[in-house]
């Protein structure tokens, strides 16, 4: 009974903090702009099954990708066991899902195997981070705190897996010692169990309890640590893929507010058709975090800073300042910096800083070739180029402060319909004196 009360209190604290975080994040989303509508749910579902559940894009780097996929699939299986632990904790039962019979054996058995696989994978990940120089884990955006965050998350997962195996092993050995029936299958921990054969039944029970509590309390802590960590992706990557754009990467979205203006410019009659509305005049493009769309903010929260985008960026590869990962991370940083005051004092709050220039420089934005290598690579379908173009739109249309060479081509296109300063009358010169051989 005491165990149940303690458990329920711990659960309530966990859910309480989680609820607070949820509404906090939701308030930040309310500061952002609209994006494309979420339609075609069937297509979205299959995209999610393929890219998120099937981990197709993570396999673009096959070796380390396989390790990640195993961790992910393992988590999905072990999650069922965790839910059982919560039920057991509330009701005071032991292995409440055992009524599932063979299915239960499969789930628990798979979880037992995955616990070992995940533990090994996490050790590999930690070893890589601590002792190998992996280039994509470096960069100006990857300060000391980012590495500490990564290592904390990995360590917590390692503790989770060790305690799960410990819980299973002591459970098996205790059942053997007192002659109870064993529920579930334990292909890995039944080989660990005999290591503790010399312990008494009471000791085995105590160690089982310790592992059980460590496991569930670390889950509770982890659940509330994640939203403040780069490992928020544990929650958000699957929904991020579900919500990600379905259009070809080449398509840029049309600015409807610009379209209205252009239509009026090109067709004077259109100006009379629609009476001037009371609409709030919205800034063209993105200057600060309140100008980004909810989807871009979602991207920034879901990003796990793996750096696959930056590793394939042609600008970054050739030593330019642009790092697509940094651009996405800056959105989250800036919201963390400005968001709380905007919630308190309203959306007009200004701290005399902006995401543009104080976080993301013009030099970074203009180094992009819009090649979409970053978006193609991102395992969770983050779209970096759309944000870069939005920030360019602000620079060009609000400030006219793009690079001089680009202003020159804009003038040329306006005047003679080509980026170069040639007369439109000369557009057919290429076709002069054109002959074909006839046999």
């Amino acid at each position, binding site marked *: 009974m005491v165990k149940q009360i303690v458990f329920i209190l711990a659960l309530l604290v966990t859910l309480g903090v989680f609820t607070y975080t949820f509404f906090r994040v939701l308030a930040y989303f309310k500061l952002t702009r609209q994006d494309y509508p979420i339609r075609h749910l069937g297509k979205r579902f299959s995209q999610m099954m393929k890219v998120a559940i099937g981990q197709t894009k993570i396999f673009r780097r096959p070796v380390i990708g396989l390790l990640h996929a195993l961790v992910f699939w393992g988590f999905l299986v072990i999650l069922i066991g965790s839910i059982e632990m919560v039920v057991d904790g509330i009701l005071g039962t032991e292995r409440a899902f055992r009524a599932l019979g063979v299915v239960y054996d499969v789930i628990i058995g798979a979880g037992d195997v995955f616990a070992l696989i995940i533990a090994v994978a996490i050790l590999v990940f930690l070893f890589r981070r601590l002792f190998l120089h992996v280039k994509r884990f470096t960069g100006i955006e990857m300060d000391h705190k980012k590495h500490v965050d990564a290592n904390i998350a990995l360590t917590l997962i390692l503790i989770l897996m060790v305690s799960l195996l410990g819980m299973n092993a002591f459970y098996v050995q205790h059942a053997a010692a007192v002659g109870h029936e064993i529920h579930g299958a334990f292909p890995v921990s039944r080989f660990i169990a005999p290591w503790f054969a010399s312990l008494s039944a009471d000791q085995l029970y105590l160690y089982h309890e310790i592992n059980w509590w460590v496991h569930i309390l670390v889950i509770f802590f982890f659940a509330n640590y994640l939203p403040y960590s780069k490992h928020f992706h544990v929650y958000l990557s699957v929904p991020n893929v579900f919500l990600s754009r379905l259009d*070809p*990467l080449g*398509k840029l979205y049309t600015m409807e507010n610009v379209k209205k203006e252009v239509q009026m410019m090109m067709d004077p009659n259109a100006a009379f058709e629609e009476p001037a509305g009371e609409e709030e005049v919205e800034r063209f493009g993105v200057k600060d975090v309140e100008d980004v769309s909810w989807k871009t903010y979602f991207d920034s929260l879901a990003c796990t800073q793996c750096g696959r985008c930056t590793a394939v960026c042609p600008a970054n*590869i050739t030593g330019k300042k642009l790092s697509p990962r940094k651009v996405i991370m800056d959105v989250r940083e800036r919201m963390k910096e400005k968001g709380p005051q905007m919630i308190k004092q309203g959306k007009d709050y200004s701290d005399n800083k902006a995401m543009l220039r104080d976080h993301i420089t013009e030099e970074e934005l203009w180094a992009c070739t819009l090649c979409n290598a970053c978006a193609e690579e991102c395992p969770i379908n983050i779209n970096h180029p759309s944000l870069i173009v939005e920030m360019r739109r602000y620079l060009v249309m609000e400030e006219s402060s793009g690079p001089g060479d680009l202003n020159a081509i804009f003038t040329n*296109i306006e005047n003679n319909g080509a*980026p170069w300063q040639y007369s439109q009358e000369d557009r057919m010169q290429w076709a002069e004196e*054109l002959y074909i*051989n*006839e046999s």
Partner: protein
Amino acid sequence: MSKRKIEVPLMSDLHARGEQPEYLVWIGSAGAYDDRYKKVSRSLIKVLTYLNISYAVLGVEESSSGDVARRAGNEMLFQMQAMTNVEILNGYGVKKILTADPHAYNTFKNEYPDFGGHYEVWHHSQFFHKLIREGTLHMNSDVFKDKILTFHDPCYLGRANGEYDAPRDVIKATPAEFKEMPRHKSFALCCGAGGGQMFKEAEAGDREVFIERTEEALGTGAEVIATACPYCMVMITDGLKYKDREEVKNLDIAEIIEQSLEL
């Protein structure tokens, strides 16, 4: 062998005669003005003429698709270009567009529908690939026999629109020996010209993107680096000059077909 002069049909002339060509061939600004790339326009037209394709061009009525303006942040200018072009294209009742430029291809296919421009858009590599598959286009000559060819994927054909096979299958229809670069298809490295870079100085860095890519292409031992985009052509040609390797040729898919057919 005799020579015949090609008079490139203009949409306005055909329209005046009440004729409707099957394809509108979009030449693009580079195709009209860039000295190297003009040759690609000529090759494309020669091949289309050889194949008896029903087509016409807009000529002086053509204007920038607006791709570069849009990607450089000038949405206003892009939309003006788009609306003007759509008005002209729809005015002529254009149904199918054929172009050698993946940027125009992408813009027409994915972005013009927002402005009332709905067309069946073909990149020339896809068009020729279709004719090869159907058996209409054969390249039997030995021009490329025993030559090593590699292909540089244009970002706006590849990653932007998922077309990787068509240009490869065109190359493979010649007797050349085809070799891939280490980074190819969806992993391909950009030539460095997109997003407006073609028209401006690169930001400070260790090196230029086009040199990195040209070195990768040369690493295959290729005698011909095939491309299928006006930007890529400019950049790779510059790269070959920079590396002092001008004995290696940089040819567009249309030129490879033209040379194979000895037109």
